[in-house]
């Protein structure tokens, strides 16, 4: 028994002993019905939630299979409360199902009268139901996403039996040798991620979220999906730079021609069989309050939608997502943390988490760079100290973050890592501007034109620029393969997501290890925020060395 790797707790958390010889096998077995919570060095924590179980059911698993899997790997007897929860939760799956009617409507069928009455007691259901007979309720197809959301939030899992629609056919293959002349193949974990999403093409598959660390090639999972589904695709990305990266990757690694890849951003508005569009374009309205791009995209016959950095999905885009329930859809992210707490809505609309792999796992296998995290603390400068002491609480963090003494720290780190590709990342423009003036390196901010930004990114990639100063515009989706050092001079309060994403900028595998420095003012509130920022990465198995300097 003691060689079994899993310990199941009464509160439905599962602890996986990473020193067990069969831990990999166990992880693969439990991941279809569990969610990874944290993955430090020795024990990884998973949890069993109702949503995870219902997703497992939708992929064809049942309570018996789940329990027997747990029994096979569990070091101790499964707590009764856990067995009961699994059986009870799974038994509720399938009592409510969605079935197609015509092109405009669909049916909701309940297996018992009591469920029918209970869902009809929900105002949203009553208000949107077109008609009802003894067997089923009929709804307009454009309410499908919202209805699922409401039913799930009320504790009614929905078995969605409406087939996903195929969009226009797309002729596309992956290249084995990229246009830039490098060998190319999809990695094992990227393939597994796609297979988890696809679920063999069964009902219940073809939608969901893939969670992979920054720098591990989430884009490739999306490209693999495009090549396998072969249908017209809309890719939604967080900014123009990432739109360009998608286009470049698609052109480089697939047989799609540049003409077939459309761009819909502030700079270019051209639709293609595969179109990459920014989130901000979608939520732009004209003077009449009309969302033109949004409506244009809705009118297209997409067969597949990819939400890049899905944790950033703007709330207005939720409506688009709820209207795109009948197509294949994939969310890609490294950090499933939303500051507005709407993760569940993302899962309901885009789909459940299908694949998640611990960062440390990919680091161990060399798919992402080994990174060392350092928190360096420096006292406030004399003038900042007085300002900090007298400032109202709300302003203290800004003063601490812009501590003038950080400048000399930046200098010494630049000297220490001379010859390496370095990013200096910060929150406050005046602070970044001061760094620019002091050291003379180029600075990228949100006010800079996209073409100029792209040029600077490209120069950095090509090694023509060794150090780049960036504001939060570079927090996400910027691929800078050779950057090996990041110096974070300030950040957005205690944002865990930002910390992880910034580390992600230096995680592309390379010949040397990466170093992530976060500069913090000693004995200020910045220390407290810093600790909070680090939580996500610490749970992923990273550890910060703390160094105090004078």
């Amino acid at each position, binding site marked *: 028994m003691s060689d079994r790797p899993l310990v199941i*707790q009464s509160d439905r958390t599962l*602890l996986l002993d990473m020193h067990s010889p069969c831990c990999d096998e166990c992880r693969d077995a439990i991941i279809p019905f569990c969610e990874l919570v944290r993955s*430090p*060095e020795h*024990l990884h924590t998973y949890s069993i939630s109702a949503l995870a179980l219902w997703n497992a059911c939708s992929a064809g698993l049942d309570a018996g299979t789940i329990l027997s899997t747990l029994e096979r790997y569990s070091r101790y007897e499964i707590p009764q409360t856990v067995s009961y929860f699994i059986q009870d939760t799974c038994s509720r799956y399938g009592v409510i199902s969605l079935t197609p009617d015509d092109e405009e409507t669909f049916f909701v069928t309940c297996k018992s009268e009591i469920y029918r009455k209970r869902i009809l007691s929900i105002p949203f259901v009553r208000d949107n139901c077109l008609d009802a007979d003894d067997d089923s309720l009929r709804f307009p197809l454009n309410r499908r996403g919202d209805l699922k959301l409401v039913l799930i939030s009320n504790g009614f899992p929905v078995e969605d039996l409406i087939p996903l629609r195929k969009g226009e056919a797309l002729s596309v293959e992956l290249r084995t040798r990229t246009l830039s002349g490098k060998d190319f193949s999809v990695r094992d974990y990227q393939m597994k991620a796609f297979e988890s999403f696809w679920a063999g093409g069964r009902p219940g598959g073809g939608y969901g979220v893939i969670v992979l660390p920054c720098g591990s090639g989430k884009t490739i999972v999306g490209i693999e999906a495009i090549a396998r589904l072969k249908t017209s695709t809309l890719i939604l990305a967080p900014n123009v730079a990432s739109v360009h990266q998608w286009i470049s990757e698609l052109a480089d690694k697939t047989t799609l021609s540049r003409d077939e890849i459309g761009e819909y951003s502030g700079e270019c508005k051209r639709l293609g069989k595969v179109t990459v569009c920014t989130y901000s374009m979608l939520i732009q309205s004209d003077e009449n309050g009309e969302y033109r791009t949004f409506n244009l995209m809705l009118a297209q016959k997409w067969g597949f939608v990819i939400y890049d950095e899905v944790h950033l999905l703007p709330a207005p885009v939720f409506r688009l997502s709820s209207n795109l329930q009948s197509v294949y859809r994939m969310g890609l992210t490294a950090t499933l943390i939303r500051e507005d707490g709407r993760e569940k809505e993302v899962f309901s609309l885009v789909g459940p988490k299908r694949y998640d792999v611990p960062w440390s796992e990919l680091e161990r296998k060399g798919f992402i760079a080994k990174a060392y995290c350092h928190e360096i603390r420096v006292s406030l400068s004399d003038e900042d100290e*007085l300002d900090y002491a*007298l400032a109202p*609480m709300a302003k203290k963090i800004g003063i601490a973050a812009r501590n003038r003494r950080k400048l000399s720290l930046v200098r010494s780190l630049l000297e220490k890592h001379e010859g390496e590709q370095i990013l200096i990342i910060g929150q406050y423009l005046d602070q970044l501007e001061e760094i620019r003036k002091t050291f003379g390196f180029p600075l990228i901010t949100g006010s800079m034109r996209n073409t100029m930004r792209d040029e600077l990114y490209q120069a950095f990639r090509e090694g023509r620029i060794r150090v780049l100063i960036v504001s939060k515009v570079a927090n996400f989706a910027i691929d800078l393969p050779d950057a090996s050092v990041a110096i974070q001079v300030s950040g957005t309060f205690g944002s865990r997501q930002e910390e992880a994403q910034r580390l992600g900028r230096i995680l592309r595998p390379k010949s040397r290890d990466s170093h992530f420095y976060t500069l913090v003012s000693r004995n200020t509130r910045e220390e407290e925020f810093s600790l909070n920022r680090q939580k996500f990465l610490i749970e992923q198995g990273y*550890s910060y060395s703390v160094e105090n300097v004078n």
Partner: protein
Amino acid sequence: MSSLTTHLNMITQDRFLALAGLMLGKVSMPYNRERLEAGLVAFFNDSTVRRNLLSSVTAGESRILSLLHTFHSLSQTQLSDLLEYRNHKAFSRTLDRLTDRCLVLYNENGDLELNDSLDYSSVISRAVFKDHLASGGRMLRLTDTLKAFTGALSTARPRSFTSAENQLSGPLHEATPLLDACELDILFHAFLAAARALAVIREEGGCLIVDRNAAHNFFSHGTDWIRSALLSQGSPTDLARKTVSLAAVFDLPYTRKLAEVVLKAPGEYLDRMDRLGFILQAEEETGDESIFSAAADMNVVFSGSSTDVDLFLFTSVRTIDRLVTLSVTDQSVLAGFECGLRLDDMLRLLFPSGERDAGLVSRLEDWDAKYRSFTIIDAIYLECEESTARLLEAMPLLGIHIVRKLSPRSFLMRRDTEDQWRRIIRYMGFSMLSSTIRPDAHRTAEEAAPAAGTDGDFTAPVIPEQDSFTEDSGEYRKILAQEIDRKAGPQAAEGYRSLLDSGMLLSPSQITEGRTFPRSASVSGFDYKGKVNLLSSALGRNSFYTITTASGSGVYSIEALEGVRGADASVTLMDEAGTRTSVKVSKIFKISEKLD
């Protein structure tokens, strides 16, 4: 005398006659008691009667019989408590039915016992503990749970035992999925009583403190001792009332302790309990030690239970389950330091194998450095002439009472020996020692000073550097006075000077531009509107106010106005005889428009 005869002698004459009538037929008067007794004894010895008596036993009666069979004899109160009867009438009726049928008899002490002429084997069962037996043999982790209680108390430092239960039962419930809410309450309550009695927890400085040595001593004993200790500390009545629940909470081996401690049951009854299966061997709590992990995610996870209680004193409990999960937080580590743990102790406990996680070590070292960077001394500040200070310092007897010399003319003196050093100073010839100025004396002035900034903004004062602090206070006052003149407007300057006079102005950083102070205002008569207007203008605000006076009359309570609490305002009241009384305004309220 047989037990049946004793029983018949113990019951009242009316009940005896009723019983005789019931069992033997109508009793003719005058009656012969001896004959009736003999008749009843013969009646209950009849094999058919005995068989029928036992065949008619109900489930409720069986519970009573089973308990009496286990404990041999119990008082009516003990029996009632053990069965947790809420409806006493129902209990009495059940018991009466049993005594009327002589299935239960009163002994010469008035306690209840079984009729030894009957064979109860067919009606007694473990069903008496049916509900609780279902939990027998389950995983409990009693000692870890108690250690978690200790750790939670150490971190939370509740003000009293009552508030400890209120404050901690919620978080502890989340952390103990092996116990239901009721079980947790019982266990926590019993632990608090035991820990208090054994000085594991004591009240000190207005809060509950965990005594680390006493905690070590407590947990150094075996599980049976701990269970016994938990029970023996509470009042016997309370314990008896909750016996069945406790048996379930502590799992069944405890029942033996229960009997020993609470019911004083001798060994032979414990043997009976053994035979009946009341005593079961609980799952071994020692478990395996195969898992012990302290990682950079600041969590400690282990599967065994022999872990030192110290580990719980600087961690915060997340889950007590098959695996125990604790988390290391700044607050829990602070509590650990306060308990007397040192960084080395923590590292030894977190990394018993010697292999250390660099991230966690780094964080702990950082907190340790921060903890040691502050020294907060509860002491009395003594200031005197420089020449006097030299004398005091030279006095050997006084040396042990001086915590620290702060400047050529000031000391920090021990608070706990104030009487002694005062006597010594007086003995030296300084007879005019003023009393100690307590913080309470400044409360009014403190409250009168409104917070700087607006809308809850708070400006923390800069603590003077040591050099400034040791400056001559006259010089320092001058500096402060200059700062007031330089920074404060004419209206605020008055307020700052008042603060300076009362000793509340300690640093130039307290003097900020734009700060306002409420002024005193005096109004007379019962001219309500006049008072309001006067106060309003005196306080420099445009709103209207209504006043609650200390006399209690004329309360116009509308809406409390935040920010002027404790304003140093007063009103003068005049009664019908024309006597004027000046009273302090205790509260100021804003008038709502509809009342205006």
